[in-house]
């Protein structure tokens, strides 16, 4: 039971890193008023780009960097369309996901047979060896890849950036009320570009983590919907980094549990009263595919609850989300 729990936690941390990276980027982009539904495509670009460079050079970090750049390259297309050309953000995003999936499948087919040794799992310097000894959570949290630690570090940094720095506050202001921000001298266009590029970079990093640390392989479509879960996660987190972290672990735990639910039977003993009633229900609810619907259902419920409760007044959703900004001209 203890080994099961430790393994579960380990898998949770691994699954959560991808969601934290991609989700945090999406959160920053959305706070600036731009919805990016291209996360999945950008992640795939990052996964393939990072993988190819790592195979060619043998350097994980170079691959990771190129993965970030690949995500940003697709994000630049999104930014140009949505900010400069004021196109529909939903259409652009969905098409970029399609484009990213198509391009990586097309050009990645030659790389399917390759494999690499992923990012090594390391302990933190100095205190790491003691932290690993912590029962249950030690191994899961403190023997991880560098990218796992990076993702964790980026959450407080992201929070600090958005709430305590001038640039971050300006960025949030253009997501709420771009007209006023513009009047105050904030460059709406430039900052929105920045926000979309940051989001693309994070998505690329999430993808590169998948191919470089998580699997050590390239498989077409390997993100398997995680980009969409990241989009859902931002809503689930009500656009707050701290809740995003909790949500990522929650969704990560669900993902880890779902892959292991077969090995752990939660059914009641045959003799227990009502076992015949409860067991089919438990079996249904812990079925891996059924558990796969939980993140999406939870997000719909949270979104509906938040909207219904606040009647649109105090909702955390950035006011100017989905609205292209056009400067008033005489």
């Amino acid at each position, binding site marked *: 039971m203890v080994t099961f729990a430790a393994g579960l936690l380990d898998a949770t941390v691994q699954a959560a890193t991808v969601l934290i990276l991609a989700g945090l980027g999406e959160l920053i982009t959305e706070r600036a008023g731009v919805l990016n539904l291209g996360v999945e495509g950008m992640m795939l670009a990052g996964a393939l780009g990072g993988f190819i460079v790592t195979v060619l050079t043998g350097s994980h970090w170079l691959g990771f960097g190129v993965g970030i750049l690949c995500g940003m390259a697709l994000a630049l297309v999104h930014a140009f369309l949505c900010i400069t050309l004021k196109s529909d953000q939903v259409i652009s995003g*969905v098409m970029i996901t399609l484009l990213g999936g198509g391009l990586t499948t097309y050009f990645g087919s030659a790389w399917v047979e390759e494999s690499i040794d992923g990012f090594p799992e390391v302990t933190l310097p100095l205190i790491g060896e003691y932290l690993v000894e912590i029962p249950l959570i030690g191994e899961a949290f403190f023997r991880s890849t560098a990218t796992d630690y990076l993702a964790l570090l980026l959450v407080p940094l992201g929070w600090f950036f958005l709430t305590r720095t001038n640039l971050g506050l300006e960025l949030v202001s253009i997501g709420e009320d771009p007209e006023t921000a513009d009047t105050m001298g904030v460059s709406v266009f430039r900052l929105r570009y920045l926000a979309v590029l940051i989001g693309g970079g994070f998505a690329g990093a999430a993808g590169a983590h998948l191919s470089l640390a998580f699997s050590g392989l390239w498989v077409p479509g390997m993100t398997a919907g995680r980009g969409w879960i990241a989009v859902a996660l931002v809503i689930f987190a009500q656009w707050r980094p701290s809740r995003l972290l909790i949500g990522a672990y929650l969704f990560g735990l669900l993902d880890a549990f779902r892959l292991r639910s077969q090995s752990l039977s939660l059914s009641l003993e045959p003799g227990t009263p009502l076992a015949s009633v409860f067991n089919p229900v438990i079996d249904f609810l812990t079925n891996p595919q059924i558990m796969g619907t939980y993140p999406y259902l939870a997000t719909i419920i949270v979104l509906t609850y938040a909207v219904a409760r606040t009647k649109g007044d105090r909702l955390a959703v950035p006011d100017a989300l989905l609205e292209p900004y056009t400067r008033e001209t005489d």
Partner: protein
Amino acid sequence: MVGIDLTARENVPRWLNYATPVVTILLALACGAVALLALGVSPLAAYWTMFGDTLLSTFGRTQTLIKAVPLILAGLAVYLPLRAGLFNIGAEGQLVFGAIAGTWIGLNVELPSVLLLPLMFVAAGTAGAFLAGIPAWLRAKWDVNEIITSLLLTFVALQLQSYLVRGPMQDPTGNFPHTAQLSAAATIPEALLGVHAGLIVAVVAVAVTYVLVRKTGLGFEITFVGANDAAARQAGMSRFKIYLLVFVIGGAFAGLAGISEIAGLQGRLRAGFEPGYGFTAIPIALLGRNSAINVMLAGLFFALLFVGGSSMSVAYGVPAALVEILQALIILFLITAEFFKRYHVDIEFDRAGDAATGGEA
């Protein structure tokens, strides 16, 4: 100093309306040519295989029409809400729900074909309408963004399908993730040109949508709500009713797309049976956004792209993913072109430059 001056166009020149789809498709094909060259394939030969050979062979034309059935129906599922200013990006899920419900009826109900097939279609339409009704109701009632909810419900539907074909609906004779084969009575018969009768359903759906949008009072309300929500409310139109209506009818069309694909072509429901028709429906609806007839034409074009793409893939050993790239590029160029339709762009070259002028003054 280069100055760019944007002025909103008051009316779009007529030639621009016709030229846009053609130009965007040509541009996308030009980009695709670069991708083909990158893998050492002659673009002209590849495109000839893709379009020429497909259109010139009976087999190619038949396959294109078969492929067009789910694409047109799913395209309508996105098109109709779009008329009312709503975005249904969950046609994929509605299609899958329709396929599940229709297949279930086909496998579990014993009736003669004349009764069974209509029942399957009704069940499929109802299931699609049900799944589409959720985001519509949430939007109409509480203003919950329908884009997000319809998208998320798609993934719920896909997981549910995956569960069913591995569990309650699995073929009892094997261990594969698919249902049993539909009986002959539950199979849609061939109608014309070697294409199953789903084609007739698709054409009727196009006609119904066309008449609904263009010729009825309800259609006027839909377009009015889509154009100006506030004014529509002033005029006493019910936004609630319209929102629910366009999504429910759209979802039903997507459901019909699902069952036509299963009962007309594949014969059984498989895990991952369809290659994203519901997502391709978005480009189709956007390309054909002006009328249901255009949606049908766009659906035929994308069907050609799919069929031609796979024969090109076989002939030249190029990944069929090129079709996805082309699809995405067509729409990305299309929304780029929208900008030039909406704005008149003047580029002014001011030789003196602002700084110099300022200095003299």
